[in-house]
């Protein structure tokens, strides 16, 4: 069965998406059907050299489009794959990859599954596994109809750097004349506030709803910085506008992998915990001994977070910023 990767070169996170997909495929290669070809969309604003250095397969079809719009991409994909008999597509994780995976499967009368943790082939065919019921359960699905369109769960694997290929086979398509914007009449990009790189910090301190006020949030942020740590927040803090969305930790924000994570005033809801579960060591500070974060942490302090953090700040003297 032929398998292909679909990559969107039009986004700033292209390299991260490509490396994550490469990591996902690495875990999949033992079973066979590893894609040997990638279809990569880009516009004339992107650096081709950078794009070609991040191709996870031996062959790439470079598809130049006028702009990134899902309708345009789907139409271009239809054009490129019109007579292909590809049985398995891998899309990037995240919203746009999942969007394309589902819509492409529908158009090709195939089957799709998004936020997939793992894909295996067994005697019954392709089995894809994803988390369900607020991450309490791992559900296995058998996909029945080709082509199978898979989009991995964000952060389900570690990124695997891609070595540039000297013998990369390149096929070019210029589809800039393709106009398929669907119902979109006009649009403009508004860059979001620069997201902080919280993913790879060593020491991360996260504040949750239990902090109670904007002032407390800012105070904990300052304490974190004084300790040489980076500061993140849970969703209730962001929704109360006590801090910016760029510090959000969880499925809607950053999936962090620090050496140590201190979760202060955080209940430990599933959507948040997904953002810290890859931490090497988790410390929970909460007044409620029954809070979910207590069992989900390596160690927990049952007390007022502010008093504990103030005492901790007296002790910790960083050599250099751990951020």
């Amino acid at each position, binding site marked *: 069965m032929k398998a292909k990767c679909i990559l969107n070169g039009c986004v700033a996170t292209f390299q991260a998406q490509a490396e994550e997909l490469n990591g996902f495929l690495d875990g999949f290669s033992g079973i066979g059907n590893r894609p040997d070809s990638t279809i990569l969309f880009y516009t004339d604003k992107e650096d081709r050299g950078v794009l070609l250095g991040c191709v996870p397969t031996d062959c790439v079809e470079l598809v130049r489009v006028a702009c990134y719009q*899902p309708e345009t991409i789907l139409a271009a994909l239809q054009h490129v794959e019109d007579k292909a008999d590809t049985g398995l597509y891998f899309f990037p994780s995240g*919203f746009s990859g*999942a*969007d394309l995976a589902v819509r492409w*499967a*529908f158009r090709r*009368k*195939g*089957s*799709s*599954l998004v936020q997939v943790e793992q894909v295996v082939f067994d005697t*019954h065919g392709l*089995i*894809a596994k994803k*988390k*369900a019921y607020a*991450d*309490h*359960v*791992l*559900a*296995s*699905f*058998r*996909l*029945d*109809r080709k082509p199978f369109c898979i989009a991995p769960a964000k952060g389900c694997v570690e990124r695997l750097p891609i070595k540039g290929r000297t013998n990369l086979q390149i096929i070019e398509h210029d589809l800039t004349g393709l106009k398929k914007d669907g119902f979109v009449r006009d649009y403009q990009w508004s860059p979001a506030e620069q997201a902080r790189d919280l993913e790879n910090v*060593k*020491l991360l301190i996260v504040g949750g709803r239990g902090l109670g006020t904007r002032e407390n949030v800012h105070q904990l942020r300052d304490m974190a910085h004084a300790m*040489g740590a980076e500061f993140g927040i849970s969703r209730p803090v962001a929704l109360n506008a006590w801090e910016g969305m760029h510090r959000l930790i969880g499925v809607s924000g950053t999936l962090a992998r620090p*050496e*140590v994570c201190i979760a202060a005033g955080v209940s430990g809801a599933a959507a948040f*915990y997904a953002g810290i*579960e890859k931490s*090497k*060591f*988790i*410390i929970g500070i909460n007044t409620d001994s029954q809070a979910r974060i*207590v*069992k*989900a*942490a*390596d*160690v*927990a*302090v*049952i*007390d007022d977070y502010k008093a*504990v*953090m*103030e*005492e*901790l700040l*007296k*002790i*910790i*003297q*960083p*050599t250099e910023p*751990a951020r």
Partner: protein
Amino acid sequence: MVISVGDAPCSYLRKPTLRDRLNYGKKTIEVLSAHAFDLPAETEALTELSILRHERAGKIIEGESPAEKAAVLYEAYLKPVLREKKVLH
């Protein structure tokens, strides 16, 4: 007829606004079943569910005061990890 279409990773049904309700509140509502849209049959089947365990050790640090707990937390857990990772002296 209200068809709610979204292009976002959430599936909350959009609620009619007060203006919508004033404009359309007295009109007869036609309810369509999903079959009316000629949707394809299920293309995937659930084969297994297994429980995911997120629990870690969950060891609770004992102490009489926040200062005592912070000291235990630092000496027994934070210091070794942070020194190993060269975050602290």
